[in-house]
């Protein structure tokens, strides 16, 4: 076989999406961000929307998302992404507009912006990376941190009388009429990755069909914040995060 045979399109079974560039990612080994970025890039590519997408980046580890996906980005203040997305979509209704946010961004400081964008039924997609911890700032407790889970601001484990219960924000949002699609997935197995990609595709399609707000929660690992190996993080996530944040659709209209 010569090189021409090897790279014959008929033999090509996989190719990195052109929407994702070759910039080395700053994310930790085993981090879910890398996989989700790739899936988003693939979906944008398959929908042929690279030149019609405007994405809003959060504050958190994914503050640098704009370095990795070749689309126009706006970097928002912490928690404010849904407000930016609201204005962008209202002024440019034919673009694909989505936010990409972590648990602190979406469910702590940004709670009001999240709820009200969803309540208004903005035609946007919200990609919510929930790893129950604040990775970028060094592993502090998040609203979604589990009971008893250790973090740098809950060194003895999250205590309910002090910090309240873990917040299931997606369940809250699913109750709003403005939300057409609320779903929860993960990217720790091949099967899970495929489901997440389908969910992202559906969320993006919903927004282009003006059905309202879609939220795709990706329950994720943070091996740095959790102080585990990536492999152990996946197992810990299945055993502890999934019971609190079960997989599947909470709403699909």
């Amino acid at each position, binding site marked *: 076989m010569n090189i021409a045979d090897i790279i014959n399109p008929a033999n090509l079974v996989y190719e990195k999406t052109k929407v994702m560039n070759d910039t080395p990612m700053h994310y930790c080994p085993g981090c879910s961000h890398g996989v989700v970025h790739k899936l988003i890039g693939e979906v944008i590519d398959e929908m042929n929307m*690279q*030149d*019609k*997408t*405007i994405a*809003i980046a959060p504050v958190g580890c994914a*503050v640098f998302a*704009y370095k990795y996906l*070749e*689309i*126009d*980005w*706006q*970097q*928002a*203040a912490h928690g*404010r992404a849904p*407000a*930016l*997305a*609201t*204005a*962008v979509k*209202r*002024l*440019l209704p034919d*673009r694909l507009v989505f936010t990409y946010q972590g648990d602190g961004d979406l469910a702590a400081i940004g709670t*009001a*912006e999240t709820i*009200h964008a969803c309540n208004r039924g903005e035609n946007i997609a919200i990609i919510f990376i929930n790893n129950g911890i604040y990775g970028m700032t060094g592993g502090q407790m998040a609203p979604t941190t589990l009971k008893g889970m250790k973090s740098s601001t809950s060194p003895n484990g999250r205590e309910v009388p002090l910090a309240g219960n873990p917040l299931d924000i997606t369940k809250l949002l699913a109750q709003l009429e403005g939300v057409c699609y609320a779903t929860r997935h993960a990217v720790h197995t091949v099967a899970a990755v495929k489901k997440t990609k389908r969910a992202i595709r559906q969320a993006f399609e919903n927004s282009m069909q003006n059905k309202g707000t879609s939220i795709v929660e990706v329950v994720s690992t943070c091996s740095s914040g959790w102080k585990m190996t990536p492999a152990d993080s996946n197992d810990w996530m299945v055993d502890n995060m999934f019971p609190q944040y079960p997989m599947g659709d909470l709403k699909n209209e």
Partner: protein
Amino acid sequence: MSKKNQDKEVLLMKGNEAIAHAAIRCGCDGYFGYPITPQSEIMETLMEMAPWETTGMVVLQAESETASINMVYGAAGCGKKAMTSSSSPGVSLMQEGISYLAAAELPCVIVNVMRGGPGLGTIQPSQADYFQTVKGGGHGDYKMITLAPGSVQEMADHTVMAFELAFKYRTPAMILVDGIIGQMMEKVVLPPYQPRWTEDEIIAISPWATLGKPTTRKVNVINSLRMEAHEMEELNNILQGRYREIEKNEVIYEEINCDDAEYLLVAFGISARICQKTVELARAEGLKVGLLRPITLFPFPTEAIKKHAEKVKAIMSVEMNAGQMVEDVRLAVNGKVPVEFYGRMGGIVPSPNEVFEALKTKLLK
């Protein structure tokens, strides 16, 4: 304000209403705001006029001032003419957004119809947000082009000018006005209609805008984060250079009876209207008093005041606060002549006679 009158050239309306009319007429793409007294008429008028049916302008009541300023950021990032308005406590909530807008070099217009503070304060008018606006209520080294209307006409004119300056320098512009001018009714000639920019025009005017990346260019990223210190310093150098340009080119002020003045009053907004009467009272008693009214608060008319300091015996700044602009007057005067201050706080408006008595007490020593 009924719709059938809007074809007439001269109208009678509140300052707040004039801002709404002017915004629609200058091709504003989006208004995002939250109600607060004494400026809710701005959004109410916009909603009543329903410009989404005529020009396609988006008018959206947000859930807070925090959300409003971030909606402005999103719109501005797309090269659109976006604005918001609020009053003092709400503008406090916008400070984070303003710092981000300045750092991301985003043009936009923010209106502060000032009320008494601090805290929840009062709905009566004040001028106590001068420091917040001109010295930076948000974090970091930045400035906002700041216009200070003194009449309903200027409320309309400054809306147009604020957008022009914001886009000329890629920076947020603030219209800083006291509650009285927002609420008072005066005659106004509204600006002519300008169509909203087409997408091609936006691309030409603002090639950095996020509209979706075509194959013909690299990605556009609206961002204020610079991880490397030298990159952050570089951004700051660019911003500072821009502010020096603004200081050189955009100073606007008005002089009343200043040619032979021996005493100078410095005041903006409604305080200047009051001081105009004080100048009349003084002149009637043979006192040669003049008034310098800054119309741009940033850039401050430093040179003009400096020149007056060469000729007058004393200067008094008159403000509805505890003494804010007076500090910039003192900097300009640089010790050449005495600079005094007279002010009322808590939403109280001084009378021309009161200011005249203060002038005699403080300046005629």
